[in-house]
């Protein structure tokens, strides 16, 4: 309770306060918001994240659900082996996953160098061109996160009553048909749950562009994502108020997602 106030509510309040004042603690209205919005780095940063999000969320929706449905038709032991394999990269979250991907994208050492050379890339610089970044970060995020979600979806599929699936089979539905018309609608709310949570997490992109930026020798901007821009504003441009304004932007986005999830879906029971 005390912690909730100290580390949840107090920083939020302080950030809002900073976002609304000037450096000399005068009330500034929304000027910090409009100033950061007009910053030449602001819109590109949000655009980058939006591109990343479209690719990532789409691939998650399709492949996580698809793979979970596929695993669900297999024998228990086989599917648990696959689930484990898919889940494993989840242990390499954060900086470690980005490092692994730097190796994978470096054509000179990558175990997938044949793929990279087929695409015509012969150096790390070529594979991490700024235009590729949204796609690359989507790959990294998918690699570390998809396994966990596959496990969740599989669990949700297991909750479907057996009689229902048997009835569908008796009615002449093949495995494919059953998956599409019976199982999929029943796990829909879990898919929504996954997408909202991922969306909220995706707006917060920081480690990935930070590390890849380091390795790209300045090709990639230091303020690629909104969180990075806030960091640059705070620590390099000495503009804490502007940084706070961006934090508040992001906080509101995260809060909206969280609130939508808690109050609009019936996943979490408050009582």
């Amino acid at each position, binding site marked *: 309770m005390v912690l909730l106030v100290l580390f949840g509510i107090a920083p939020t309040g*302080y950030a809002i306060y900073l976002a609304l004042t000037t450096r000399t603690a005068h009330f500034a209205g929304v000027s910090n918001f409009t100033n950061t919005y007009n910053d030449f780095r602001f819109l590109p940063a949000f655009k980058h994240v939006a591109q990343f999000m479209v690719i990532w969320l789409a691939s998650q929706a399709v492949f996580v659900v698809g793979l979970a449905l*596929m695993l669900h038709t297999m024998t228990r032991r086989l599917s648990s082996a696959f689930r484990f394999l898919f889940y*494993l990269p989840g242990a390499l979250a954060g*900086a*470690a996953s980005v490092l692994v991907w730097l190796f994978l994208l470096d054509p000179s*050492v990558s*175990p997938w160098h044949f793929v990279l050379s087929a695409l015509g890339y012969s150096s790390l610089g070529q594979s991490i061109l700024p235009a590729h970044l949204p796609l690359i970060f989507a790959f990294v995020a998918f690699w570390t996160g998809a396994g966990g979600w596959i496990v969740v979806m599989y669990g949700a599929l297991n909750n479907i009553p057996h009689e229902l699936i048997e009835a569908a089979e008796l009615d002449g539905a093949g495995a494919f048909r059953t998956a599409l018309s019976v199982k999929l609608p029943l796990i829909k709310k879990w898919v929504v749950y996954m997408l909202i949570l991922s969306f909220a997490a995706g707006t917060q992109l*920081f480690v990935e562009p930070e590390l890849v930026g*380091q390795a790209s020798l300045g090709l990639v901007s230091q303020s690629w994502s909104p969180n990075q821009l806030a*960091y640059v504003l705070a620590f390099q441009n000495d503009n804490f108020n502007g940084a706070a304004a961006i934090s508040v932007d992001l906080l509101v986005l995260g809060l909206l997602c969280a609130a939508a999830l808690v109050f609009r879906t019936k996943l979490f029971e408050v009582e």
Partner: protein
Amino acid sequence: MLRRRTGLRLTGLLVLLVFTAFFFVPIVWLLLAPTKTDHQLVFLSNPFAFGSFHNLAHAWHAVFNFQNDALLTWVKNSAIYSVGGVVLAIVAAVPAGYGLALTKFIGRRTLLAVTLVVMIMPATALVLPLFLEINLVKLTDTPWSVILPFSFFPFGVYLTYIFFSSTIPADLLAAARIDGCNEWDVFRRIALPLARPVVALVAFFAFVADWNNFFLPFVMLPDSTKYSLQVGLEYLVNSTPAFNPSVPAVGATIFRPELALATIVAVAPVLIVFLFAQRTLVSGMLAGATKE
């Protein structure tokens, strides 16, 4: 019809194989990388060949001797931050979940809803505001600047809440009260011993989250002797000629095999937790959202 079905099955198998390669190949490659020299990594035609133990030992020495045992310091820092955060998180989350589940007070539902909202909200959203707050009380650059925020772990509160509200009958606690236990005794002697599995679960999740956290220590602790392992990894990326050509190759000790080894060291604790507690972790992930 029959042929169509085998065709479908084959496509399915193929898709699975592709994804298995996608998820698993990088890990195998990473585990093998430190057994090779940088030269071998580039020129060995089979990326899954095993190098030699000699190379592994060489990489081990290079990476641990880097800048006066910097890696060891980071491991130690990460351990202190994570364990400190986990202990405080448990101390705070377990009684909070207990209180929310088994006592009635005004504002309980609101508090529960707020807990849920902050649980789902990504933690990084709070990093900069937290920095400003911690800076205000002059705690930046001390271990407390990461341990204290780590101790804020709403997911743990929610997990214990679910546990207490679904598995412990209120009658049991009422009986203890009739037998003369005061509120503190009820919690300590009855509820806490029963909650051991959920405490372990909260500890797991808190540990993994703290250990992998990058942004918070990155912002709070600018001094390289106080880096956590995750931030240290970034520093290593900057110190290798493989990813930063402004570092002269002559005299450099960190190359790709060393970097791979450092990555393995960094993920080892979490990987071990994953391997041994997979089932528990998975059930916890589901418990986070269903009330069973």
